[in-house]
């Protein structure tokens, strides 16, 4: 299966701008389906961006984040060609990881 993470990182001077889109249902656990049954909670708990082995962005997420979340941030210290590793772990223990080059 294709990666659930789409990422684009561009270095501009000493600032690296990162945009990421993650495919995830992000069910809050408060919504019922068409049959009136609760859809069990299923959401990303931790999202991590690492540049050269060092965490540059760590988010502790909960049920309030929307489906297929989009993240945009920038950090100092990244260089063109560096590896940016993105990973998430959800409340069911599932996870995904991808690595992108800073452009």
């Amino acid at each position, binding site marked *: 299966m*294709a990666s659930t993470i*789409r990422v*684009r990182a561009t270095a501009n001077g000493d600032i690296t701008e990162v*945009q990421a*889109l993650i*495919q995830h249902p992000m069910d809050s656990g408060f919504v019922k389906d068409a049959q009136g049954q609760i859809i069990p909670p299923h959401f990303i708990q931790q999202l991590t961006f690492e540049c050269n082995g060092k965490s540059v962005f760590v988010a502790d997420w909960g049920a309030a984040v*929307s*489906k*297929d979340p*989009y993240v945009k941030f920038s950090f100092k210290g990244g260089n063109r060609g560096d590896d940016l590793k993105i990973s998430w772990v959800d409340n069911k223990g599932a996870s995904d990881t991808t690595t992108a080059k800073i452009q």
Partner: protein
Amino acid sequence: MKLQSAIQFASAAVALAALIVIGPSAIAADSIDPAADAKAFQKYFTDKFPRLELKDFVNGPYSMNEDMRRQWQEKEEFPPYEFSLEAGKEMFSTPFRNGKTYADCFPNGGIGIRQDYPYFDGKEGKVVTLELALNRCREANGEAPISYVKDDMAALTAYMAFTSRGKPFDIKIPNDPRALEAFEDGKRYFYTRRGQLNFSCASCHVQNPGERIRAEILAPALGILNAMPIYRSEWGGMGTISRRFVTCNIQTRGVPLEPQSDEYRNLEYYLSYVSNGLPISGPGARP
């Protein structure tokens, strides 16, 4: 007596005058002239929004509101339909169990042809939309048809629209009375009020584009299908033209028709034809 005959005479004169006035336009309404309709339709919108270029109409509400336009430009850098687009590309290139692919069912291998759909099929005597053609392709190859409203169908049409981006809508109406009737029927559906709220399609998308309906900005009918299928934030996912028609009917508290029923096919035919010349911009993202 004198007064009464004077009234009779006056009303007869009025009736006669009305007949003369109505006469020529009634004749014009009887003959179906799609080209004139499309011209008048496009002129209505360009007159209503003189600052917009014709091709901007395909961006729907984003062309009408500066704030939303900025949000949309940001969104387009990383569009929410990307996952669906990729899924569609994969589905499109994956062979059926008999070894054939979707490409075998379409001219030019299905690439860059979105602008030619829907078309009028002279043999069947009906309008054939892209969604319908995709399911017919599946059935012809021994596969079960898929839902018209979302997921797989949206992904497939997203990919096919994406390969046709920028190509102007090129809907043809052959010189066949059935084709003209289909066009006229679609037009009738578009302008007929229905549902508890007594709205026609035109009430929102011709009379009030650019205005708010609650928190939403209404899209203009001109170019509305060019951006299909769309990722709607309100839906939290992708939707096809069929889905858009069905939800529009539900929102006016009417009873929706079956996706790809004759009326919807004719409606799509009409709406696409009057947007002829505007570029395909799908898949789109809408709030």
